[in-house]
């Protein structure tokens, strides 16, 4: 495969600076509304604050890849004496839990770094994080060209995993007939 230049976008997360405000969730959900900014709903955000004040746990986690199958087990971290909830650091939209999924359709959510044309100066969660728990950096790297699943493919794939290909095809056929 050919080498290409790729812009690597990095959000740096300093959990010590996080005050738990969830502004990152607010603006992410608004930006990704189908009619831009028309709704707020942290349950649709592609960033999620794991927050347990009494345990001093403040952990912003970004939605990563969708996975059709859950892990064989669970992980549970203790860092600096603080115990994190099961799978806290995991970024996957996974069948074992309802995080990083649209609350109504269950379709997976994934951080797209606020893709926009023309591009934004920085992702919006970073802009709205006034405590600088989130900061942003870009750098260039040479990488092998790769095939990326588009958003619709990911969504469809998750439906296939959930209901099976046959059922999905049947149901699409039914929908086509109605129209």
């Amino acid at each position, binding site marked *: 495969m050919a080498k290409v230049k790729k812009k690597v976008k990095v959000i740096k997360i300093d959990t010590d600076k996080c005050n738990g*405000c969830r502004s990152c969730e607010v*603006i992410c959900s608004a930006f990704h509304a189908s009619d831009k900014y*028309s709704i707020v709903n942290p349950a649709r955000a592609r960033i999620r604050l794991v927050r347990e004040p009494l345990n001093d746990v403040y952990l912003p986690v970004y939605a990563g890849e969708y996975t059709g199958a859950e892990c064989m087990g669970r992980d549970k971290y203790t860092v600096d004496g603080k115990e994190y909830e099961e799978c806290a650091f995991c970024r996957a939209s996974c069948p074992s839990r309802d995080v990083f999924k649209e609350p109504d359709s269950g379709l997976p959510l994934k951080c797209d770094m606020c893709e926009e044309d023309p591009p934004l100066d920085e992702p919006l969660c970073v802009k709205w994080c006034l405590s600088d728990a989130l900061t942003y950096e870009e750098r260039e790297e040479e990488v092998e060209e790769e095939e990326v699943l588009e958003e619709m493919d990911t969504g469809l794939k998750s439906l296939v995993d959930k209901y099976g290909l046959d059922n999905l095809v049947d149901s699409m056929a039914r929908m086509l007939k109605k129209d």
Partner: protein
Amino acid sequence: MRYAETGYNLEIDMSTGNIEKVETDTELTNHYLGGLGTNARILWDRVPPEADPFSPDNLLIFGAGLLTGTPAIGCNRTIITTYSPQTLYMAFSMMGGFFAPELKHAGYDKVIFRGKSPDLVYVWINNDQVEIRDASHLRGKGAVETEKLLKEELGDSRVQVASIGLAGENRVYMASIEHGRSSASRLGLGAVMGDKGIKAIAVRGTKDVNLARPMEVIDFCNYLIDYIPERDSNPIPGVMPILAGLGSPKEMLIHDEKWHTENFMWGNARTRIKDYWTKDVEEKWKETQESVRTRLISCYNCPMECGAIVSVPGISTYMMKCFSKLTYTMAAYSDLDFGFRIAQRATEYGVDGFSTPQVMAFALELYEAGILTDDDLPGLPEGNEERFYWLLDRIVRREGIGDVLANGVYWAARAIGKGAEEYDHNTIKKHEQLPLKLSMLNPIYFLMWATGEKINITQIEGNFPQAPFPTREEREAFVEDWPHVPHEKFKEYFVNWELRGENSFPYYPPPEATCDIVDWQETMHYIDDALGVCAGLSSFPLKPPYHIHNWPVLISAATGMEMDKDKLWEIARRNRTLIRAINVRRGLRRKDDRPPENHWKKRFPELEETLLDTYYELKGFDKNGIPTRESLHDLNMDFISEDFEKRGIYNDGQSEEKS
């Protein structure tokens, strides 16, 4: 489609267990916005003025502000409303945190409780699924502990919980409703929640909040995101640290407590210690604060970090905000370490951090004076700090003398008698106040202490400086960049205000100007409490991001309502008048609009009467503090004057309005 609001209230009858989702009337939003405004209208409509606060007829309303849950920064308030068991007037308290946004995402603007549950229960609101569940396993548990246990029980750390501790269960008049780093503390809301048998409300929501004109809302938010850090990093010169920046205020960040410790009174609002703040104290307190403060924390969608996680070695972790770090400390003539320790127990019990320390200091004064004796306080420990713990434990259990003290200073003094009334010297309308005793009458503060319906100075003061700056140059520099004023005349009021001489207290600002200043500050609070924004970003600090000229833009963009400055001002006036009317119907009159007698050494009875007259006139009240027919008519609230007529309130010999 409804914008910003959900358009639904949740009605729960605790007696029958009936739960209903009820669509709300858009007319109410147009008239009162939401939050405190619509809460008040519901209380007026549905609770008869004769109702005892502990009767099943009384309502307990948890209302989200109109803009709560929109991206507007700091709009996160839950406004809780009922009748106060202590003052017997309308009680309202606003709490920050995460509760109201979650409620909106569950699909409701308010939860309205009526009736009484025979057993202790908690209410679980999970989007459309609402259940009343047994809470016998939570009986006697701390408020913070309850929150933790419920999150575990419900298996979701995103659930938001509002709970009461032992004080609320035992209907202690100082009982608060606690929610994480926040609380609705004043006026005994927790006692009414306990009376209804509700240990906690847990809520989880995953629905959308809609915006009418999204791009305009976001443009406004972009202004906020620039303005807030800019303003906060440019403190206003010549103003004490907690008032120089934004926030509500940032007591958890700030170490310098010279102003509070030397100007506020210690004990039962008794002693001023003028040279308290020495280098030694400063170092020791700084060390204390830094050693227990784990992290500075914010409420939902707000960058201000006014609260903190507090972990004192050996006792369980809790959260604190604002001034409670000093109230126990100063009531007990102790230090900050004691303050942080006892506040942990007090937070679990769920009590008001303003009133409770004062009640305890009052009891110990009575003991020293021989009015309370060893017979009344059997087993009272020797040490001063131990005595505070001892009293606190008894108050929240209503044990022995604690049962009397649990009703607050006013009622306790009357129950104890033997001259105890003399020691009740810091209440207004039966409610304990900040421990301040000053010299020269301040006309602005006179009116705010006397007439504030919230009966709490911090919820009426704010946008106008508390004192003049020493030189004219400084004052001119301050007003130069002051777009917040509703009218240019406020700049003049400030520029001409002097520390000494003719243009100083008590005759400056003159009554009309004084009333304008009070009116402006008060109006901003009523706007905030209807919209659900934290006062720390709006009505409390100087030069805040939100003000009377930009609110209409945001309200209109978020809700789709037509809004301008005059209309908004009128709504705030309507809400203020409605709450006065509710209290008038429960007996409030001019004679009750008084600060504590000894609040200032130098009083000016004639001037004070003029101030009240002028204020009432500006507000459209008659000489007895009752809203007039005309002003009610102008505000589209003829239903109130009709009710007053029926009850004979205008002709009860207490009203001097000519008919």
